[in-house]
Each structure stands twice: as structure tokens, then as C-alpha cells.
């Protein structure tokens, strides 16, 4: 990751803005992913750089620039969100790879299932599951947090919402991991095709026998007065599934990691449960995990760099939450901040429609876990397994506690 003169670059990218950076591999061993992004800011003090890796793309580093990339669809189209760009796939994901106004036609279909006002029963079920999972390993005094908790709770809640069998959980999560964290477009495509095959079967079943689940709503949807097409329904279901399979799972891992390392913050949450809600926001600010690409669609300037139509650009949400010009002392987690400004759910027209569900799950986790396991730590000081990609996450997290 050093500035270099001999990597290929488009003619409009000046040499001094080139850094050899593979965003799927930060290169060194690290145990704080967010600090690795911070180091990039030191390497590119101008606030933006170009890397020739993964098809070549820009990386803006200022929080406001990232927010602009993710929200200004007149200059940065969501038509391609994967870096490196996809090849040979069925179609764009819907609606995350659409721009307004058509994006809203599809967003409308799923929002009723994710609107805060409809989520209390979902939260209640999530709470019951959280309690039963924790009580299942409590007496053991240890657990592998990712596989025994984080990968189960949100995925189970989501399968419930979609009306899909709980037995398919592990298989679906495997697809999700490949699609969001594989840097190999071929591998990504294979998982995508496998997930499509799985969904098509269930979509046909719901068309014959619709229920009140989200998948039934998708296959029977009306789009601006016409029936949704098969491909549209498939791409919408794919998008919804990816949003639910691989996001809260990973955020939970970072929450648990932080609390395992910080007894003072645990004590605060136990002594003052009212801090749980702000803690959810503050922990998401410090650990935003999503990064998505955009396609530049008109020549424009950003932090002094000339961007050309057709260029790809990466918007990493953690760069907003940890930007010192937006949040003072940004790497300190403070549950009593006046406000925790973050774009962990994105910014603008694509802001995550599942954010209310995500917040409830994270809140339930903090409430029920801290009550039962107030004192816990990392099992060993071995290197953490952190995987990087469109959604960053911990591959495993061994925890232990006095039992």
C-alpha cells in the first residue's frame, strides 16, 4: 500500500493520487478494522485516491464525500454497487442497484414489512430467541459467538419474515458470505446463481399459494399498475435476502468484540439500561461495516480530483462515523455523546429500509446479553479473524465468562 508509479491507471488520474490498495485485503495483520481505514486517511492527506486493484476505483476518505457518493444519484449511480464490477449476472439487484424514480416503485413493496410501526411482534420473537440462545450456552462459560449467536438470531428473524424454512439458515448464510465478501466475480456469480435457484423454487410456490409473508408480497406485487416480472421479483427477493442475511450478523460481532474488550462500557450498560439505545447508535458509528460502490455518471470533481463518467468509486460508511471533522475524538466510544452521527445504514435514497429491524435486534441483544452475561472476555489473544468486503465481519469470536 505505497504510492507507486508503475501501476496502470487511466490517463485522467494523476500519479500522485494512485495508491496500491486492495480493499479485500488490507495487507497487514490488524485487530481493529476501522483503524485500518483511518490509516488510509494518513496515506492520502488530499482526501481521495485511486487504486488500480479490483478493476480500478476511487476511494474518497472524508466523511462528507462518502455521504455525497452514496446519496447524490445525479453524479453517482447505484447501477453498479459491486467492486470489482459484476460480470454475466442475471440482472441488477432491485432496488439497491436502481436510481430514482423507479427505485421507489420497488422499495414501496418491502417497506410495510420493515416499517417501525409493524415491528413489535418481530421484536418480541427476536427477544425470545435471543434469550433461548444465550441460555443454551450460558452454563458452559464460553461460546463461539459468531456461529452460536450472531449468525443465528438475525437470519432466523429474517427467514421468519420471508416465510422460509429455518433449516435453510446455514446454507443461505453461506451464499450471503460469498456474495458480499468474495473478491472473485466468478465465485460471487456462482453463489448468486445458487441463491437465485433456491429463491425461484419458493417464489413459484408462493405464487400458487400466497401467504402474508414478505416473499408472497414480492411475487404478487404491483409495480406502477402492472404485475412485477419474474426477474424483478427475483432480484428484489435477492436484495432483501442479502440485506437480512449478512448485516446484523456482522454488526453483532463487532458489538460483542468491543464489549468483551471494554469492561467499563459493560458496567455502564448494566448500571444504566437507558444507555442501551444510544449505545446501539454509538457502537454502529464506530463500527459501520458496509461499503458500496457507485458508478460515476458525469465528469465531476471531488476533493480536488477529476472523476470521469464511467469510473467506479467506493463509499465506505465507517469513514463518516470516524471522521474527526464530524465527531470529536471519533475512535473513543462514548455512550453519552450528544449525538452519534453515522451513516451505518447508508445515506440518501438508498438508506437501509431494514434499519428499524436492525436497531431492534441490536437493542435486544444488548439488553438480554448484559443481563445474563455481564462479565465476558475474549477466549485468547490470538489474531482476530476479520473478513473485509462489501460487509465487513468477524469470521469467529471465542468468548468466555465465569460460570
Amino acid at each position: 500500500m505505497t504510492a507507486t508509479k508503475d501501476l496502470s491507471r487511466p490517463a485522467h488520474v494523476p500519479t500522485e493520487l494512485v495508491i496500491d490498495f486492495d480493499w479485500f485485503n488490507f495487507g497487514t495483520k490488524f485487530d481493529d478494522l476501522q483503524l485500518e481505514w483511518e490509516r488510509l486517511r494518513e496515506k492520502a492527506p488530499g482526501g481521495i485516491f485511486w487504486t488500480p486493484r479490483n478493476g480500478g476505483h476511487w476511494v474518497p476518505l472524508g466523511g462528507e464525500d462518502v455521504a455525497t457518493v452514496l446519496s447524490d444519484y445525479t453524479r453517482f449511480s447505484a447501477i453498479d454497487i459491486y467492486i470489482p464490477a459484476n460480470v454475466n449476472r442475471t440482472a441488477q439487484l432491485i432496488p439497491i442497484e436502481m436510481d430514482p424514480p423507479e427505485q421507489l416503485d420497488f422499495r414501496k413493496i418491502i417497506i410495510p414489512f420493515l416499517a417501525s410501526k409493524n415491528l413489535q411482534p418481530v421484536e418480541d420473537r427476536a427477544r425470545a430467541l435471543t434469550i433461548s440462545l444465550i441460555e443454551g450456552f450460558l452454563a458452559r462459560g464460553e461460546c463461539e459467538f459468531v456461529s452460536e449467536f450472531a449468525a443465528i438470531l438475525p437470519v432466523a428473524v429474517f427467514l421468519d419474515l420471508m416465510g422460509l424454512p429455518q433449516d435453510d439458515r446455514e446454507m443461505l448464510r453461506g451464499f450471503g458470505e460469498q456474495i458480499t465478501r468474495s473478491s472473485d466475480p466468478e465465485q460471487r456469480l456462482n453463489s448468486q446463481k445458487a441463491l437465485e435457484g433456491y429463491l425461484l423454487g419458493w417464489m413459484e410456490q408462493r405464487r400458487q399459494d400466497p401467504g402474508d409473508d414478505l416473499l408472497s408480497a414480492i411475487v404478487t406485487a404491483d409495480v406502477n399498475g402492472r404485475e412485477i416480472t419474474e426477474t424483478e421479483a427475483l432480484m428484489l427477493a435477492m436484495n432483501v435476502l442479502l440485506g437480512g442475511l449478512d448485516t446484523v450478523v456482522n454488526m453483532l460481532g463487532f458489538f460483542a468484540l468491543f464489549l468483551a474488550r471494554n469492561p467499563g462500557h459493560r458496567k455502564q450498560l448494566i448500571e444504566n439500561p437507558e444507555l442501551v439505545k444510544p449505545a446501539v447508535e454509538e457502537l454502529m458509528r464506530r463500527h459501520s461495516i458496509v461499503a458500496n460502490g457507485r458508478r460515476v455518471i458525469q465528469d465531476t470533481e471531488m476533493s480536488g480530483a477529476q472523476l470521469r463518467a464511467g469510473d467506479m468509486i467506493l463509499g465506505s460508511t465507517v469513514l463518516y462515523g470516524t471522521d474527526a471533522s464530524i465527531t470529536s475524538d471519533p475512535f473513543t466510544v462514548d455512550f453519552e455523546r450528544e449525538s452519534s452521527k453515522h451513516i451505518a445504514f447508508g445515506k440518501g435514497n438508498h438508506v437501509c429500509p431494514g434499519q428499524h429491524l436492525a436497531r431492534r435486534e441490536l437493542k435486544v441483544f444488548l439488553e438480554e446479553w448484559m443481563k445474563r452475561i455481564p462479565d465476558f472476555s475474549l477466549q485468547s489473544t490470538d489474531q482476530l479473524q476479520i473478513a473485509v468486503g462489501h460487509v465487513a465481519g468477524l469470521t469467529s469470536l471465542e468468548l468466555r465468562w465465569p460460570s
Partner: protein
Amino acid sequence: MPTITFVDPHGIEHDVEGDVGQSLMTVAVNHDIPGIEGECGGEMACGTCHVYVADTAGCVPPPRTTDEAEMLEVLIDGVKPTSRLGCQIRVGPELDGLSVTVPSE
């Protein structure tokens, strides 16, 4: 510039000036009106700019579009006849003196 009154969730009135053509959501966000987030940037996608428009003589914003009505219905608990998404109302001279109330939660 037209003046808009925002009554925040604590009942406090904020009289602020908006540029013609700006949305009520943008005006509110620019003036840090409590309770208005404008999270989606004005694309009717989030519902965080929900306001109740007072029945003020002479200050009647254009009616809801179908899209706005649909999004209100799915996003907002307890939609009232006066419910609007602030992002869908443009400031114009005819709205000088308009008063809107920001719901609590």
C-alpha cells in the same frame, strides 16, 4: 423569503426563513429543527420528515401525490388528514406564514 413556523415535539415554535423552491424538510434540517431527520434526502423513502400541516388561511400547500400518500400510509403510525412528508412540500411565496407541527416520535 417566506417564513415557516415549525412547532417542534416539545411544543417550541421556531420561525425560520426558507428559500423559494426548497423543501420544508431541507429548511428544517438546515435550521436543526428537532424531530426532522430527512434521512433519505427527500426521496420519500424514510418518513423522517413527517409533519402535520396546520389549517392556516391562505397557506395551503398542493395536495399529496399518490406516491406520498402511499408512503405515509406504510411508514407512519397514525396518519392524520393533515399528515405530510416535509420533503414533498416546496416553499413558495404563497406559503409565507405556514405553520407545521413535528410529531413526537
